[in-house]
């Protein structure tokens, strides 16, 4: 029955699961020119993220941000994507796995299908656009821009096979298709198949099974989504009316010991709920009251605390520290009642809500668990895989790696980081596969011809509510030289792309204006899409009518529409004046610079060196190891000193790594693939060349002036406390009472963010104290206990052993006073309504980390990189590009990005290495044509440009006529435009931003004023 074939392309890495993590891992490998097979049991890739409406902390839809990831574009032929495919068997071991893949029939020939939707219209009962709320139908498209873009049919559910077959105008429906079985060889395997979500149906007290208005957070997300069951309208499932009050209940299926809950924290739900509450008020109705019932608000990620504050202060999201007992709807009542209590008094509160969202956590997926068991991967009792305490993506089986929610509940940035880390380790085992590069059409003056401009308005429904796209299209048509204009509803929809191409060819368009969102998202996508139809990439202009019109003029449709028209007119004028340009191709440098010799930097260096890159590792101090040298053990028991010793040994002895200690970065120039960096090595200048740079400069342990720190010998930081426990166990045995205070110098005005690692570190120290001295009484005073993920189990362990955790409010902090031999700590236990005074033998302050602001600022200046408000290095996209930096070829890892525990730092180090390898794998470098050029006839060699250039690129060179003129090396030029602006003779023009283009745009804008 089944055909069994040997797979033609012998994939080198198998990635199981096509969610965001799987996609990231596969793309990293493909970009590093390694062969990869990506399989997913669903018909199309995209995973859970594509069901989300918007994601935190940007509160954007972000579908279009993923679109270039998943749309069919050039991946150099390294990536083989297979939908509807499962792994049925795995044999062999690291370096030589043989996997059996079974691809279920799609019953639709993807090559023939035009996605016309006829089958869907003929069999409407069979079609669903709303996974999560509607039952899946036989013909199912999961989300608007599914890749591969084709329908899929569940033949078991189809009653009229012949009718279905006949309805397709191109004969793409193949009702007799059979499953395909193939075998593939691979060197390593990445499991990225995600997790299941907790099903709360059996929790009668939350009413999920009985009450339509009680939904899970994912269902709520679908309700908010433009592609959801209500078409993006927020309506109560029970009666179709908009809700006035919505509540969230946290930790449903997480942090529990009964009724099927996981003992772990799912890590993402708090942020998820905050986002849903904010979006509810921001996008639907600012009058909707939003309340989150929580146990601890776990906003532990980078800048998440600020997001939490924004939710409270700016958006008025109400947070109630309480886990409700019931969600009820008495017979005959229209609303839901939540029964809860507050900390301050023993009393019942009953409050009415229109909708209740259960923040359901992650569970191990049973299918995935089975596959992991087949691979003999060791699992925890809850089914999630056990991973190494210093390597969160390595399973117990060599060559098998995990990432994303399959490894444990987490949010998107952490998933992306783990995915890159897994790809780093999996890719280290396989060789680069050479593939020829696709030829681009040559750039000729004919590319331009007489200007025929096409205007494409591409906005999502839910982003353009304020904009009248029809009127905008009509207006665009009226602009001279515009030969066609059209609106495409979903910019992320590949069928829109096809329609766009058709319109361009039909109208002989040679210049394009895209009226949509930011050029950062749109430009590259449209450049890639329009190149095959002969549009030069520099003849495309983007009018950002989303941010600059719809968003800034939210609630003022007249102003928004007027602005959108102006922006389009300006873009048309600009593109008319643009010239076709060709990119430069130059040989690339394949070495790396790693800045920072802590555990993060050394790990990154070793991973790169292991993959053949030559690495310069620069450390400011005289010694490798960084802040981790102060640590004894991780909470899991990992020996940090042994780790450091091992890393130092390997780093210093690796033939591909050159270590420079006592070294500072002094200057820097060039661009990705061609960097030059000047070092001061023990005071001596040295220049190195490199293609990519990883920043792993760490952060600084905080020493705030608080709670008698530095004044009273009983008071110390957690780092000090750890040392005492390790070095003076006799002293610890004498202790009777210990108090720890959390969030000292974090989450306050001076340092607004959460330091993330302090909660687990105080628990680690508490457990260590109890090991020495089981009779010690330990009190941990906290604001929100943020033991995310498996740290929750250590929190549980600490409670089990008698550690008492007491919440304090920021308005009523504890007091520490010297009291002879002791330090007296006074605090309020709100639940008892009593003050408590503890005579403490030791007071441990969780002081966390602050950015190494001074040195970061210096480095940021040399490298030209942005920092966050609190002085950490800023990544390119907090959600989807967590280790990439704004400047191409730069990556960030470890505490330089934000504070985190060692294992997470090492994961980021590996992720950064993986990302860097995507750069270093290239022998050549395509340089954008955006560089400055000098009209030597006009140049007076006045040196203004030489002085103005922030990168010291312009030089006065002598030409064959013996005249000294300015010369700008296109390879070195950053395209910043400073010289062009400064040049008094207007001899310098910046390609793509020539004066004529800008002036044309401005003339258009000011036409009426001038007239």
């Amino acid at each position, binding site marked *: 029955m089944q055909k069994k074939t040997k797979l033609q392309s012998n994939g080198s890495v198998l990635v199981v699961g096509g969610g965001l993590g799987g996609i990231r891992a596969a793309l990293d490998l493909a970009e590093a020119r390694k062969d990869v097979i990506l399989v997913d049991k669903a018909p199309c890739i995209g995973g859970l993220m594509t069901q989300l409406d918007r994601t935190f902390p940007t509160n954007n839809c972000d579908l279009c941000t993923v679109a270039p990831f998943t749309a069919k574009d050039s991946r150099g032929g390294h990536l083989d994507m297979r939908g509807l495919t499962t792994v049925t068997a795995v044999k062999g071991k690291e370096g030589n796995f043989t996997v059996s893949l079974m691809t279920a029939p799609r019953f639709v020939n993807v090559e023939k299908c035009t996605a016309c939707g006829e089958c869907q219209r003929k069999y409407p009962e069979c079609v669903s656009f709303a996974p999560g709320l509607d039952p899946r139908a036989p013909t199912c498209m999961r989300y608007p821009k599914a890749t591969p873009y084709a329908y899929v049919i569940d033949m078991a559910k189809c009653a009229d096979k012949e009718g279905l077959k006949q309805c397709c105008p191109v004969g793409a429906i193949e009702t007799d298709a059979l499953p395909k079985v193939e075998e593939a060889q691979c060197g390593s395997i990445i499991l990225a198949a995600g997790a299941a979500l907790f099903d709360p149906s059996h929790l009668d007290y939350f009413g999920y099974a009985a009450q339509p208005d009680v939904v899970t957070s994912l269902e709520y997300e679908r309700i908010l989504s433009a592609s959801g069951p209500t078409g993006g309208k927020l309506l109560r499932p029970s009666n179709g009316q908009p809700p006035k009050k919505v509540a969230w209940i946290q930790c449903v299926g997480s942090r529990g010991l*009964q009724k099927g809950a996981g003992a772990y924290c799912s890590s993402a739900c708090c942020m998820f709920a905050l986002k849903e509450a904010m979006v509810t008020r921001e996008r639907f109705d600012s009058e909707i009251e939003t309340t989150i019932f929580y146990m601890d608000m776990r906003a532990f990620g980078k800048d998440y605390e600020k997001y939490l504050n924004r939710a409270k202060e700016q958006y008025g999201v109400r947070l109630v520290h309480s886990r409700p*007992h*019931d969600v009820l709807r008495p017979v005959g009542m229209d609303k839901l009642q939540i029964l809860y209590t507050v900390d301050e008094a023993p009393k019942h509160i009953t409050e009415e809500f229109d909708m209740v969202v259960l923040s359901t956590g992650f569970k191990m997926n049973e299918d995935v668990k089975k596959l992991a068991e087949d691979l003999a991967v060791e699992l925890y009792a809850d089914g999630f895989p056990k991973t190494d305490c210093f390597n969160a993506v390595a399973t117990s089986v060599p060559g098998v790696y995990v990432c994303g929610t399959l490894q444990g509940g987490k949010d998107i940035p952490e998933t992306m980081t783990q995915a890159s880390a897994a790809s780093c380790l999996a890719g280290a085992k396989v060789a680069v596969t050479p593939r020829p590069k696709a030829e681009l059409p040559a750039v000729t003056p004919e590319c331009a011809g007489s200007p025929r401009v096409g205007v494409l308005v591409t906005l999502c429904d839910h982003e353009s509510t304020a904009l009248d796209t029809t009127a905008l299209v009509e207006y665009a048509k009226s602009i001279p030289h515009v030969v066609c204009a059209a609106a495409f509803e979903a910019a992320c929809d590949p069928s829109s792309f096809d329609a766009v191409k058709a319109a361009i060819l039909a109208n002989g368009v040679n210049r394009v204006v895209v009226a949509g969102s930011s050029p950062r998202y749109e430009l590259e996508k449209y450049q890639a899409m329009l190149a095959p139809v002969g549009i030069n990439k520099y003849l495309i202009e983007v009018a950002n009518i989303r941010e600059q019109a719809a968003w800034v003029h939210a609630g003022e449709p007249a102003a928004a529409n007027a602005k959108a028209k102006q922006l389009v007119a300006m873009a048309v004028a600009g593109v008319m004046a643009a010239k076709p340009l060709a990119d430069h191709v130059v040989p690339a440098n394949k070495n790396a610079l790693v800045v920072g010799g802590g555990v993060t930097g050394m790990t990154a260096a070793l991973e790169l060196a292991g993959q053949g890159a030559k690495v310069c590792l620069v450390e400011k101090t005289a010694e490798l190891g960084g802040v981790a040298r102060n640590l004894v053990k991780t909470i899991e028991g990992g020996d940090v000193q042994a780790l450091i010793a091992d890393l130092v040994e390997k780093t210093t002895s690796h033939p591909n790594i050159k270590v420079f200690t006592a070294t500072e970065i002094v200057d820097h120039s060039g661009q990705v693939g061609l960097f030059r960096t000047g070092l001061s090595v023990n005071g001596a200048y040295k220049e190195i060349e490199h293609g990519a740079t990883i920043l792993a400069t760490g952060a600084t342990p905080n020493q705030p002036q608080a709670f008698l720190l530095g004044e009273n010998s009983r008071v110390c930081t957690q780092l000090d406390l750890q040392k005492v426990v390790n070095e003076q166990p006799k002293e610890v045995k004498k202790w009777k009472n210990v108090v720890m205070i959390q969030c000292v110098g974090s989450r306050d005005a001076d340092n607004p963010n959460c330091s993330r690692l302090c909660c687990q570190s105080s628990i680690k120290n508490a457990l260590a104290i109890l090991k020495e001295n089981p009779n010690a009484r330990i009190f941990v005073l906290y604001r929100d206990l943020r033991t995310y993920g498996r740290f929750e189990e250590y929190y549980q362990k600490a409670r089990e052993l008698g550690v008492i955790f007491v919440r304090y409010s920021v308005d009523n902090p504890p007091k520490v006073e010297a009291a002879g031999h002791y330090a007296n700590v006074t605090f309020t236990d709100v639940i*008892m309504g009593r003050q408590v005074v503890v005579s403490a033998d030791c007071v441990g302050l969780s002081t966390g980390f602050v950015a190494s602001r001074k040195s970061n600022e210096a480095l940021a200046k040399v490298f030209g990189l942005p920092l966050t408000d609190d002085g950490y290095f800023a990544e390119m996209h907090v959600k989807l590009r967590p280790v990439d930096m704004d400047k191409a070829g730069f990556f960030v890892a470890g505490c330089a990005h934000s504070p985190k525990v060692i294992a997470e730092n090492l994961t980021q180090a590996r992720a950064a290495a993986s990302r860097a390898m995507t750069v270093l794998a290239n022998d050549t470098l395509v340089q954008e044509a955006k560089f400055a050029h000098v009209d030597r006839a006009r140049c007076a060699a006045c040196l203004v440009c030489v002085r103005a250039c922030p990168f010291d690129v312009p030089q006065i060179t002598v030409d064959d006529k013996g005249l000294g003129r300015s010369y700008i090396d296109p390879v070195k030029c950053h395209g910043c435009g400073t010289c062009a602006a400064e040049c008094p003779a207007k001899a310098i023009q910046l390609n793509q931003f020539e004066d004529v283009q800008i002036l044309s745009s401005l003339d258009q804008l000011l036409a009426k004023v001038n007239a």
Partner: protein
Amino acid sequence: MTANIVSITGGKQSAFIDKVKEILPQGGNLNLCLTCGACASGCPATGLADMDPRKFLRMCAMGMDEEVTTTPWVWMCTMCMRCIYVCPMEINIPQLVFNARAAWPRENRPKGIRDSCDMAMRTETNSAMGTAPDDFKFVVEDVLAEYQEAQPEFADMQAPIDKEGAYFFLNQNSREPNTEPDELVPLWKILHLAGADWTYGSKGWAAENYCLFLADNKCWEHVTRVSAKQADDLGCKVFLNTE
């Protein structure tokens, strides 16, 4: 407020909660409280005596033994288990309350409950109203005879006591034989029509167990054993709870 300050100094002393932990499986999870408030949100006794389950557990955890073993709240909690039903940590607060009741000197425990227990201890019937075996037998036979005669359809109806080998061993709340014997009859009729093979025990028929409520471990165990033994001695298969 000063009087209310909890002062923690010196070494750890064994507290009431530690003793309870020792006798419960997994220590009743008593240490695991997350102070989330789910119990207090749904406890019908929240607010009585200015207490709720979370606060009670918290005071136990803080070692405030004096207060937790004297608050009358433990007699206002019915140990209905709504708390543990939703508690994320499945903390056995009802057992903590039970043991707090047990920590009261017996003579200080509520008189009504104590008297009922004492009464049950005085007779093998376990009746909290002190009904003796013979009195029960008399009432049952008398009522049965009356109904057999007055309602001839039920002339064959039986209400056996100590019938060897009966399938069901029934218990019966003392209230019916003592104060409203006519209320016994509907149950008998149902059993008769269903053709059930059942019996009461002359010993241990009473369904109530106030010694349990009194948290008098010795007594409630005694009372329970009397019932169980009678059912076993008679060779009954199923102990049928009629409550």
